């Protein structure tokens, strides 16, 4: 039973640490952990496609942005509560991604990767021209919307805890998938899709499921993130920087592992924080990310977890 495996409890511990660390009052720590939680969510879900099935999704930000739009729109224009708005966002984006997936998942490797950028660009262009969603100016939320959650200050804490929960769910999702028959199939697809199909792995269905599953939690995270900022516009919602960073994080930590994205997110955020405060490097965020990625791809494609597992194979019993 999965519940008996140590890693299940390690994830739980991580969630508790995130939730408890700011102790309900350290706002600065909370904000930095919140960003980490977003990164971990994006990277873990990206990993379902990238690390398991071997499909790079360059435009995964589209799930985050669309989820944000759905939530902000439902709350701002339709007057719904946070819960229903998030749910509608998550489900809608999952269904939409199933639709996109039907088209682009027939493509392999490189073509698929390019098509995901296309999907992001197409959605961004659509939203920019879509007046009900504010077009290129975006949507502003009134701070009155924070009242039902106990006022702005309290709401920010609630949003944080919800994001930590989403992060936790992402890690658990990764874990359950990897330990399931579905995961076995995805990993086989990632190794050799044709051989997997000959063995009976229903590749089209599994890829579509993975793609759609990888959209749900980022969409909810997007809803929370943009609700928190009380503002959303196409340029931010569909900014490829975040999905690029998610790829770097996943590769850095170790694609195909569950702990990898979390480790990568933590390290990357530390690095980024240091870069932003250093006077020489503040503009060089993406440069550093690029150099990192280049080195990893050429010299350590398994990422940090890959290196640890080679050095200490017994680690595999505790971590995934």
């Amino acid at each position, binding site marked *: 039973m999965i519940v008996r495996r140590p890693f299940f409890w390690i994830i739980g511990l991580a969630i508790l640490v995130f939730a408890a660390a700011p102790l309900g009052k350290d706002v600065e720590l909370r904000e930095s952990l919140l960003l980490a939680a977003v990164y971990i969510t994006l990277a873990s879900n990206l990993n379902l496609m990238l690390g398991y099935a071997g499909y790079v999704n360059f435009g995964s930000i589209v799930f985050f942005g669309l989820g944000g739009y759905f939530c902000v729109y439902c709350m701002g224009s339709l007057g719904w509560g946070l819960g229903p708005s998030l749910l509608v966002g998550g489900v809608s984006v999952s269904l939409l991604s199933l639709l996109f997936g039907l088209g682009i998942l027939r493509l392999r490797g490189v073509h698929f990767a390019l098509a995901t950028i296309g999907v992001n660009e197409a959605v961004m262009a659509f939203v920019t021209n879509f007046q009900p969603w504010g077009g290129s100016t975006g949507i502003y939320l009134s701070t009155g919307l924070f009242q039902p959650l106990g006022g702005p200050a309290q709401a920010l804490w609630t949003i944080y805890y919800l994001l930590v929960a989403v992060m936790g769910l992402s890690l658990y999702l990764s874990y359950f998938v990897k330990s*399931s028959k579905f995961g076995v199939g995805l990993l086989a697809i990632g*190794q050799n899709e044709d051989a997997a*199909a000959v*063995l009976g792995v229903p590749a089209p269905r599994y890829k579509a499921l993975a793609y759609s599953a990888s959209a749900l939690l980022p969409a909810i995270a997007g809803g929370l993130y943009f609700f928190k900022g009380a503002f959303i516009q196409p340029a931010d919602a569909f900014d490829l920087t975040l999905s690029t960073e998610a790829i770097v994080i996943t590769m850095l930590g170790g694609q195909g592992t569950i702990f990898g994205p979390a480790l990568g997110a933590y390290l990357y955020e530390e690095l980024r924080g240091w870069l932003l405060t250093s006077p020489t490097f503040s503009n060089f965020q993406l440069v550093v990310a690029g150099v990192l990625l280049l080195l990893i791809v050429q010299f350590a494609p398994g990422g940090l977890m890959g290196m640890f597992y080679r050095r200490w194979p017994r680690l595999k019993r505790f971590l995934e």
Partner: protein
Amino acid sequence: MSALLEVDDLGKRFGGLQAVGSLSFAVKEGEILGLIGPNGAGKSTVFNLINGVFAPDSGRVGFRGADITGQPPYRVARLGLARTHQIVQPFAGMTVLENCTVGACFGRENLPLARARAAAREAAVLVGLGDRLDAPALHLTIAGKKRLELARALSARPALLMLDEVLAGLNPTEVARMIDIVRAIRESGVAILMIEHLMQAIMSLSDHIVVLNSGRKLSEGPPAQVASDPAVVEAYLGDPGLVQGRGR
């Protein structure tokens, strides 16, 4: 009783080349059928047409009573038809057991993960890889990889196993072992359709032989009959007068 696999008037063209033409044959339950022919005769193409890698231009493929013509490979596998490849394709990043588990999960019985692992273990033991279950597939020798390919296909507990040159590249000792394994597989109730170039092996293993030449069926029958068919000898050796009676 009707055949397990029925190939009826199968045809496939690639550009100007008729790779397979008007091919018909059948595999009975529990039978070992050998598919032989000179290089380029279209044997692997026949496999690809049967298990759905290519869709045929004409003809029909029936398996266990169902029409599987042109069905994608994963559907065909789900019905109980497994296949190995001439150039082995192990999942390099996985262990032997993990490789076989993939086969066991998605075959005819659609086993849940735990039972799939057990079935995988059985298949691995049957082919002689029981002592290397946790070895990375990458580290196996060619003989090991061939056995892994076989075990992986077997793990699905298929009704029919298609073997594509499973003896190629093996030394005589390994060949002898593999022949025993193939016999053991047949004993366990699996029918086998095999492509092979090693004449002595395939003649001694098969109950029935189909000879292909330039995509068409040249001859068919029990091994002894086919071996002395002048048309077959001509196709292989070029001179029907060179009837030696036996292969290499």
